[in-house]
Structures are given as structure tokens and as C-alpha cells.
């Protein structure tokens, strides 16, 4: 390949690159907002030109928006969409199994990939009331695979979240099937310092790659339980110059990536 690695990148840029790598060509991807928007644009322009993006306001795009978006409802995201429909119609497709991959962010995620975006502390008297699910819990319930994106701080990785907004693997194993979820579950957790996956059987989180400058020990130290390390864990491949160029074309002011 003619691409050259470069060390000159921000943590957010590396997260975008890692997120883009979760998208396979031809897939239907529930994109959502912020970094995944850039990841979708990056994947489209590199290894996944035939990926299609979904947005919970009822949009389907087969091209990324021509301008940086602060919300999925910004006018440039509607212009050139291939379908602008009702949230309910789009989510119905999701319920059928239309989305191969979905992205969500959140405040805290636990050992089995359960995500809390609702209540820190007791639900009746919360310490912090977070904004809530939005479409996140639907994406987590219904997508073929889920990629979770959030900052790597120990407080964001408790062994058990205090409230499961978006279901991951519950308490592990076949929990999703037991509660009746039709498919899915987290495939990747993309953090500022590492990327984690889940074991095939118990569905417990495990370290897959640590970002340059971090380490397996650093990832373990910033996790609220005794984090497993995948047998083939290794350092995260660096972003290529091409990847960084595209991200910077998409976010020239660094609104999301600086």
C-alpha cells in the first residue's frame, strides 16, 4: 500500500479510525452522531464504499453529508439523502434486522457491554440525570453488531452499570436470547486509549488492542474490574496519512476531533 503511517494525530482521530475499521463494505450502518459520523465518512472513502448509513430521525444516506454535522438533523444531512422517512418506519427496518452494525456512545459501560445513558446513582434520586436513550437503546437492542464509543476513564468502566439503558450482554452468556432480544450485542468498545472486544462464549469484555502510548496494564488500571486480555492482543495500528487527511477534510476545524 502506498499509505504511510504518521504519529501526528489526536486521540479522537484514532477513535474515528478504529470505528471506521468496524464497518465492512456493503454493510448497513446505524450511524448516529459525533465520531461515528466521521467514521462512516472515512469508511466510505476508504475500504467500505458501498456502506449505507442510517439515522434515527428517519434518514438513509449512501453518501456522507457534504458538510460537518453537529446534529443528524442538520440541513446538509437531509440534502442528498436517499430516503427521509418517519423514525418509526426506519426503526421498523432495524427491528427486522436491517442494520449490520450500530454505533452508540454513553456515560458508562460495564463488563458485559451494558451501557448507561440515563441515571448515575439511584433512579428515584439520581446523582446525575443523563439525557437518556434517544435511539441508543433501540440500536443496541436491534443491530446485528454494536460498537460503543466513549472516553477511557475508570469511572466510566464499572463492573456493573447502575442502570442498563442500552442492553449489552446482560450478565453474560446467552442472556440476550433469554430476555428475548432478536439478535446482536456489542462487538467493540472504542475508547480513548484502547479497543475492546467480547469473548465468544461468556461475552465478557476483553482487551483487543491498546493505543500507542498506552499499554495492556494501563487499560487494566483504568477499568473497574479485572479486565481480560485477548490472547492475540496487540498495539492498535496507527492511522494512515490517508485516513488522517480524510478525517481532516471532513472536520477541518477539528470540532469533533480536537
Amino acid at each position, binding site marked *: 500500500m502506498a499509505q504511510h503511517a504518521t504519529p501526528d494525530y489526536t486521540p479522537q482521530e484514532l477513535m474515528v479510525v478504529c470505528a471506521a475499521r468496524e464497518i465492512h463494505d456493503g454493510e448497513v450502518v446505524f450511524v448516529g452522531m459525533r465520531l461515528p459520523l466521521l467514521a462512516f465518512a472515512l469508511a466510505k472513502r476508504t475500504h467500505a464504499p458501498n456502506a449505507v448509513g442510517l439515522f434515527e430521525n428517519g434518514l438513509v444516506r449512501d453518501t456522507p453529508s457534504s458538510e460537518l454535522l453537529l446534529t443528524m438533523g442538520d440541513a446538509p444531512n437531509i440534502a442528498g439523502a436517499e430516503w427521509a422517512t418517519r423514525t418509526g418506519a426506519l426503526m421498523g427496518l432495524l427491528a427486522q434486522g436491517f442494520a449490520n452494525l450500530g454505533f452508540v456512545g454513553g456515560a458508562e459501560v460495564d463488563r458485559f457491554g451494558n451501557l448507561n445513558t440515563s441515571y448515575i446513582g439511584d433512579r428515584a434520586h439520581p446523582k446525575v440525570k443523563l439525557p437518556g436513550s434517544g435511539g441508543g437503546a433501540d440500536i443496541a437492542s436491534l443491530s446485528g453488531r454494536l460498537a460503543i464509543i466513549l472516553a477511557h476513564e475508570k469511572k466510566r468502566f464499572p463492573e456493573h452499570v447502575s442502570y*442498563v439503558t442500552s442492553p449489552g450482554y446482560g450478565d453474560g452468556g446467552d442472556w440476550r436470547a433469554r430476555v428475548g432480544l432478536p439478535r446482536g450485542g456489542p462487538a467493540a468498545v472504542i475508547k480513548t486509549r484502547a479497543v475492546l472486544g467480547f469473548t465468544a462464549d461468556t461475552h465478557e469484555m476483553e482487551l483487543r488492542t491498546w493505543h500507542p502510548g498506552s499499554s495492556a496494564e494501563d487499560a487494566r488500571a483504568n477499568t473497574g474490574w479485572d479486565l481480560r486480555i485477548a490472547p492475540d492482543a496487540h498495539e492498535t495500528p496507527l492511522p494512515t496519512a490517508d485516513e488522517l487527511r480524510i478525517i481532516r477534510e471532513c472536520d477541518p476545524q477539528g470540532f469533533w476531533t480536537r
Partner: protein
Amino acid sequence: MTMAEAVERFVPDGSSVAMGLALEPLIPFAAGHEIIRQRRRNLTLIGPISDILFDQLLGAGCVAKIAAAWVGNVSEGLGYNYRRATEQGLPHPITVEDHSNYSIALALLAGGLGVPYVPMRSLLGSDIARDHPAIRPHDSPLDGTPTLLVSALRPDVAIIHVQRADAAGRAHVWGGLGVCEEAALASHGVIYTAEEIVPAAVILSDPNRVLAPGKKTLAVVHAPGGAHPSPVQGYYNRDHAYFAEYHERSRTPDDFATWLREQVLDVPDRAAYLERLGAERWQALARRAPLLAAPVDYGV
């Protein structure tokens, strides 16, 4: 009808009001501000991602209950008034009925279909569905599939900002539609606030673009700029900076009180609001270039 009259007549204290139904665009801020000015109390707010309008109504003390999927400031994060209401009961305690975007869409769909509920396979295993007054687990009697039954929501009124409407109460809306249609059909009546009031012939020229029949309409209000700072496709873009300013200026109850007086209470109507915003800022948001839909021929 004027905004003041529409709110006076059709949004009494204690109403359930659906707003912000297209998610981030077309949020009826002008209507919401009039509700605040008229000091409505004990409202139930219904919507998916409400962005900062619900936060403002909460801070102004208008709200008893919220049924929503997400309450905050989409581009900035948390909503301080929502946090104060739920964490500290300020200015007074509220009831929160948590939803996801899909469950709120299905609740309104069920309302529009005139049935008590619609089943759903999302949120199984989520704490949202646990002890929820309006979502109940019930395996399908047909094939045993685990589902959650989402109770029908029938708001007293939906307030929907649209690009154009006619005097007879038919509206054209385009762009991201969110749950606008479900809410218009489920609600007992609809108030449209419109960028433009157009002749009936304009609306009737494209019946597929009409949101709901005129018989559902309570009032049509001419409200140019009525969705600012949210965007209106083909008219103006989102005023991102306004959301950031609100975030900063609502951190404390005192800050918010100052903001509210300046932006809402001391502003008689939307024309004055836009004047206050300033022509330069307003024009910078304007749609920069047209992008017309391909012609459609309904000819016979």
C-alpha cells in the same frame, strides 16, 4: 390566528403537549416561548429528542411530567434545568417517563391507530422497560415471541413547526420527519406554526406532502423564524452557537433566570425575538442556495 391566541385557547394548564417531533429540526421554539410567557403550569411534555426547548419549559416551571427518549442539549450534552428538576426537584419535582426514540414512536403510532398498544422487540432487557407504567412485557399469543407492549399515547395537542400551511389547516413539511406524522395523527388536535401561510392551491398541489387532514387542525399560526435556533430545511440552518450560549447561560438557576428574562419573558413575540437576534446573525443562518425537488406531475 396569533401565537398568543393559539396557546391561550388550545394549551391550557395541565395539557399534554407533543413538541420537537422532527427531532433536531423544526422545533417550535416560538410556541414554547409563548407557553412560558403565558405561565402555563402542569404540562405533560411528549417528544423524542427534545433538545433545549424542554429544558427551557422545565426551568420556567411549566412542566409536571415528561415522556421522552432524550432530554438535553443535542450538540452540547446535558440540560441543566432537566438535571435540576430530576436531581433536586427545582423549580419543582417532575415525573419522568423514560422512552427510547422507537418506543415513543410506537406509542404515538398506537394512538394514531386507535389501539391500546403496539408490540415491540426493542428494549427487552433494558431498565427502561422495568417497572414502566406504559410498557409491559407480554409474549406474543401467536408464536410466543417475547415482546414489550407499548401503550398508546394520545397527546391533547401536537405543536408542529412546518415550512408552509394554508388557512384551512393543511401543512407541507419536509426533511427529517421523525415522529411528526405519528404525533399529528395520535393527538386530539394539532397547532401548526408555519414559516409561510400559502394559498390552499399550493398545498393541494401536492397531497402526498400533506402531514395530516385539516380536520385534525386546531390552529395555524404564521411564525417566520419560529423554529430558531433549530433548522428548517430550505429556510434556515441550525444556529449551533445559540445552543452553546444556552448551555453556558443555564448552568445555575440565576443564570437561567437572566437568560429567560432576556430571551423569552421580555420579548413580546417572535418578530421581536428575531429583531433582538439581529439581522446579521439571522441572515448568516439563511439557506445559502436553493436545492429544488425534481418536478412532480399530478396531472390527469
